[in-house]
């Protein structure tokens, strides 16, 4: 035994720990807990299930539909309605990706292996973002095709080549992904699962209700900034969907606004991670 091996039993490899290793670690963590499978499964079942329900109901009653109903009918948004319910599932998963580490104490093991905390959060966001994007897009396309197949024959249906349709379908998947990342940012800020999910639900579902109680001129200015309303715009092909929004953001602008929320939440979360004790 040499003198050096007395101090450090195994010589260290050159360089230092790498981002690729941290990414692979976060991927292993994400796929090795049941909450991931359950949340994603819930997302698939809710999105496609509600899409099937909505389109079959419409297909059955189309012959009795009024003229107004027929004029405002949007087969695309109808088939994608389920995704607006699935946003809760992706939000819960986004929160859990970080809050579960704090809740269980495993964050201490994580930081003991990777002291660079912003890197940990960035790796989580990237890995979760890619998984969420793949699943969301698959779900979005599946809900669209199944929905249109149900409508075909009894009611008007859409195809991807029609104007705005491909944008709505791809945009819906993006919407869910960015919303999930927003939830991850909220989780990083609050660190508590229940608290973060409550805040997420409040922003998504409670804020529109509060807005309803406010005077119209405020409502018209603020409504378009709410994530839920951005979502409603994205799943539709018509510029002004059924929900009363005076001046909604165009779909891509809306996604940009949502992405800004997500980025802001993640940056604040990362900054707090640096400041706070683990």
């Amino acid at each position, binding site marked *: 035994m040499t003198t050096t091996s*007395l101090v450090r039993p195994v010589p260290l490899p050159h360089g230092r*720990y790498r981002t690729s*290793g941290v990414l692979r670690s976060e991927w292993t963590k994400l796929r090795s807990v049941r*909450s991931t499978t359950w949340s994603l499964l819930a997302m698939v079942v809710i999105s496609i299930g509600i899409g099937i329900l909505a389109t079959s109901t419409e297909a059955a009653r189309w012959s009795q539909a009024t003229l107004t109903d027929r004029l405002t009918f949007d087969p695309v948004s109808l088939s994608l309605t389920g995704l607006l319910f699935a946003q809760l599932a992706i939000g819960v998963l986004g929160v859990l990706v970080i809050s579960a580490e704090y809740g*269980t104490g*495993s964050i*201490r093991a994580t930081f*003991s*292996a990777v*002291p660079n905390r912003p890197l940990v959060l960035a790796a989580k966001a990237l890995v979760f973002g890619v998984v969420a994007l793949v699943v969301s897009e698959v779900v979005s396309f599946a809900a669209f095709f199944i929905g249109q197949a149900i409508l075909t024959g009894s009611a008007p249906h859409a195809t991807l080549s029609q104007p705005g349709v491909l944008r709505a379908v791809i945009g819906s998947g993006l919407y869910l992904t960015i919303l999930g990342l927003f939830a991850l940012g909220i989780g990083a800020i609050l660190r508590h699962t229940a608290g973060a999910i409550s805040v997420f639900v409040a922003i998504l579902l409670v804020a529109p209700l509060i807005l309803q109680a406010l005077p119209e001129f405020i409502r018209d200015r603020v409504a378009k900034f709410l994530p839920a309303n951005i979502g409603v715009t994205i799943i539709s092909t018509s510029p002004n969907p059924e929900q009363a929004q005076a001046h909604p953001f165009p779909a891509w602008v809306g996604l940009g606004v949502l992405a800004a929320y997500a980025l802001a939440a993640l940056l604040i979360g990362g900054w707090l991670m640096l400041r706070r004790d683990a």
Partner: protein
Amino acid sequence: MIEARGLTKRYGDTLAVDDLSFDVPPGVVTGFLGPNGSGKSTTMRMIMGLDKPTAGHATINGRRFGHLPWPLREVGALLEAKSIHPGRSAYNHLWSLALTNDIPKGRVDEVLELVGLSSVAKKRAGKFSLGMGQRLGIAAALLGDPGVLLFDEPVNGLDPEGIRWVRMLLRSLAAEGRTVFVSSHLMSEMAITADHLVVVGRGRLIADTSVPEFIAKSSRQSVRVLCPRADALCGALTGAGATVAREDDGALVVTGMEAAGIGELAAAHQLPLHELTPQTASLEEAFMELTAGAVEFHGETLPPYAEAVAGQEPPWQQEAAS
């Protein structure tokens, strides 16, 4: 090698760790001893870069934790039993950690084998008993085969066999030249395991010394003497400058004179002795004596509600008795 310099941690008005400076050298087991709530865990978390010191700093092999190029390969820590996601299997927990520091897959199997968890490696960690969780934490600490190891109360929740196993593990890790820093609130445990002691009370350094030195310094050596003519012996002893106390069974407890001196004195006075037993205060007693002023909740400062009920039986016990 761990070096702490002026480590201080303040939570609001409470000073949890107060200007701690000490070295933890390689090759020996260094015990980190102090009553519960004396700042041991906080100190260890500060060494591991998890908590930010209010003042001062700690280094591992000369570097701050955050600057280590391969953290897991340089320092391993068992901080609390619960640093594990209960929904993840032991194997995946270790594998996700190994990936960050380029530690090969085979090492995961190796440490699982070492702590005896191979057969339950694929089970969710939430199903583990306290002792199994503790062993998984030890496996995680050893994962990177690091030269510096921190263990916060490692024998918590272990059965006697497990405690013996941990003790041997710590000693053999130190024998390999590693730096081993292990905290405990149990003096008796440290007496068997540690070579060196860093003793804290209320966040302050009380002693930084070897185990035998610690006992010698902080405990009074005494001799128990049984003599049928106790009064005569007592007079002779005090006359020779020793201090004598009487025990309930009539024995004398002599301090300030060694057993040989007492025996010779008794012979010179022609006093028969029935017993002559040198007594060393146990390490536990030495520890209690040293930290007596440094225990967080001291008997003399009982809160009013505790004084109000002192000496009274709780009502549920009375009910049970009647």
